[in-house]
């Protein structure tokens, strides 16, 4: 019963969040000085052509009208234009990108596997190495290892992903020629090639993300090691690996899981730069295209999707709290 109520409230919350995100995006979009119809106008662009393009794209209606049309489209589908050239966008219609001549839903689903492969793979790497290194340096606080890891992780956050990616390509891709420099091979086609093509992007992304995990793990670990139950675990003759890896780590995980949820949520919405550097056709590129070309339907679709992922990740994280720390169980 309580679980049900919780789920219902989260669902309502999620929908609310998504609605607000879309709404704000809509409003802000109208503040942005540009005219998407302009791109569909051609050169030279006469007033008449511009008006036609606007009408066809539905941009001549007042913005609230367009917003309602958009929402309506999700449940009823939409048709743009009339006659032979009309375009139908079937339920659930998250809009139609006139610039790409495709359903937004199709555009997003096409790119989903790439972004997911990139994001999840990198996440696994940085989580394991970041938390692992964090634990290690917590145990060797003040040692040379600690100092080197500190410098390394600071370099990781300070260096632009773009630079790291480029250097990775130059060194590992060209000079040493050990890994491919980009492109995406679907998992279904060849799992080995899939992984092989993603190794470098994974490492690059992981390098830039790991720092927070290292530092966070380290500091939380140091806090936890002073707790009485760690003493109990030791007094009971548990192996140090168990004391640290289980008793301490479990109590350290809460903030880490939170950061992870945040990172993963945003990452699954697209890692723009990494995707770009490694020519991976992922969602990030799509979103950037949508923004720079003022492709409102696509922008809304991507935003909605990214927001959905973020909310989802956060809901999962909240559920994790209860599992990780029974005291924080949702009431």
């Amino acid at each position, binding site marked *: 019963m309580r679980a049900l109520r919780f789920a219902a409230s989260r669902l309502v919350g999620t929908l609310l969040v998504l609605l607000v995100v879309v709404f704000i995006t809509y409003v802000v979009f109208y503040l942005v000085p540009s005219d998407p119809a302009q791109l569909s106008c051609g050169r030279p662009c006469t007033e008449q052509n511009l008006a036609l393009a606007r009408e066809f794209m539905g941009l001549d209606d007042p913005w609230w009208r367009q917003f309602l049309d958009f929402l309506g489209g999700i449940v009823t589908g939409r048709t743009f234009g009339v006659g032979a050239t009309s375009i139908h966008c079937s339920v659930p219609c998250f809009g139609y990108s006139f610039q790409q001549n495709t359903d937004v839903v199709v555009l997003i689903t096409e790119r989903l596997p790439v972004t997911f492969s990139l994001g999840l793979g990198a996440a696994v790497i940085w989580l394991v190495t970041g938390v692992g290194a964090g634990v290690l340096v917590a145990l060797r606080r003040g040692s040379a290892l600690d100092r080197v890891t500190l410098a390394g992780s600071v370099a990781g956050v300070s260096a632009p992903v773009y630079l790291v990616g480029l250097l990775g390509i130059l060194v590992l891709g060209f000079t040493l020629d050990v890994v491919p420099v980009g492109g995406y091979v679907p998992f279904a086609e060849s799992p080995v090639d899939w992984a092989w093509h993603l190794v470098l992007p994974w490492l690059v992304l992981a390098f830039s993300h790991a720092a927070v995990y290292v530092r966070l793990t380290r500091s939380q670990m140091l806090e936890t090691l002073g707790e009485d*139950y760690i003493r*109990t675990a030791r007094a*009971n*003759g*548990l*192996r140090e690996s168990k004391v640290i890896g289980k008793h301490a780590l479990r109590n350290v995980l809460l903030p880490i899981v939170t950061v992870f949820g945040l990172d993963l949520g945003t990452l699954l919405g697209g890692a723009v730069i990494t995707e770009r550097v490694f020519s991976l056709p992922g969602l990030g590129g799509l979103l950037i295209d949508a923004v720079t070309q003022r492709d409102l339907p696509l922008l809304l679709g991507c935003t909605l999707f990214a927001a959905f992922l973020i909310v989802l990740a956060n809901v999962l994280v909240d559920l994790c709290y209860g599992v990780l720390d029974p005291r924080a169980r949702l009431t």
Partner: protein
Amino acid sequence: MTSPLLVLDGVSVAFGIPAATEVSYSVAAGEVVAVVGESGSGKTVTAMSLLGLLPGTASVTGRALLAGRDLFTLPAGELRAVRGGEVGMVFQEPMTALNPVFRIGDQLAEVVRAHRECTAAQAKQRTVELLALVGLPATARRKYPHEMSGGQLQRVVIAMAVANEPTLLIADEPTTALDVTVQAEILQLLRDLRGRLDAAVLLITHDMGVVADLADRVVVMHDGRVVEQGPVAEVFEAPRHEYTKRLLSAVVSLSTPPPADLPDATEVSPGVVARGEHVAVTEPTWSVPDVPGDDPVLTLAGLSVSYGRFRAVDDVSLHVSRGEVLGLVGESGSGKSSIAGAITGLTAIGGGVVSLAGKDLTRLRGRELKRARGRIGMVFQDPASSLNPRAKIARSIAQPLVLHGSLRGAELTAKVDELLDAVQLSTSLRERYPHELSGGQRQRVGIARAIALDPELLIADEPTSALDVSVQARILDLFRSLQTELRFACLFISHDLAVVERLADRVAVLHGGRVVELGPARDVLTEALHPYTRRLLAAAPVADPVLQRARREAWLALGHTE
């Protein structure tokens, strides 16, 4: 005599300043050695030094030989085998000793599996056995530490320590949170361990009754040094050192043993019998009704508290009048702390009314609530976790003063020092952090904080369990004088029946979440009506080795099973 199992040879522990100095004593196999002494005298740090469990700020010197091997220089691998294997350790503060995020059963099983090859099923089997050994149901396996009462946790920690049948058990205040019936069972368990496995027990305790009951020899510590040691009978009979004499003279015991036969009482309503003010239930599913009192500060009417489907407190009605001390005694896990939690608003109330000076607390909001709360002082059962780990002692004590009073600056400092003094703590401790104190010192900080505001209602949950009797006596004196002076109402929760007898005006006995008996302290503690109360009284140990042996046998004859 064979060479002793454990020999401490000039062990000193210092945290910058010495905490234990040149401590030497030994424990032979099959022997129970009790370490008693002043709170803060270094009992715990000495014991912890043996297994290398002191924080890095401690420096340890001397030798500690376990069966000939020096524990201080043991390689890590061997030390691990010793910890929890050959030597079991019960920690003084059970409520923080368990990992909050794992289930009890898993933590127990883990200890079992750390020292012997066994399957998950076998470990589980052993877990259930261990829980039964300490009087906990098998369902306790699935609980998390925060879902258990203080006494239950203490038993889990004991179960953990004996899990691998150690040859030496170091038990630091193992029964502080246990009511005397359970305590008796635990002592029986220890005795058993010794009898069956020829295990040695190093017992740290303040309870002279327990010492009398169990120990072969006594080591008395004061100010970080061993001031006297010898066979228990000798020391109790003829203490030599000044401190030992003071200690033993401070021991309080229950005045008279309960009469063998039930006093007669009249049935006033179905299931309830009474003798004047003194009432008890005869049906197991009843709670006694409250007796009317004048000028009640606290009134509980039909209070119940539930955790999920489990009803921890069931239809409890009580009151505490101005200037009165109501002692609340009862079985471990019977809901005492839950009642305290309900009054202070920490635990959600399942039903009934809690009112303070006529005002329903659950209805108060905002400023009024804050004012009402300012009138309640609370001593937590678990002093360790009720102090902010990052706040110095002085600040913790000053906190209520800052929140409600107008004292600032030097006045505040003076008041804090005054409070420290009142609870027998040196003002040099004011700049320490909670983890840098001994258990008893922490507990006194909790008391100082609770009385700082001159509360109208004081709720004290086992406030003296970690104090040695000499300090305890002075704290009790303080209590009493404060009480006569300020006439606050006090709900005093304790397992120590002797203390309750000395302090309380009336006593309520809690059993399974219900008040089974209620009445003037003398009446309840001398002429108990309810069978549980009688068992309780019978189980209370006295600080006389000879007498206690007799009492134990009597109690065993009573049949301690329910």
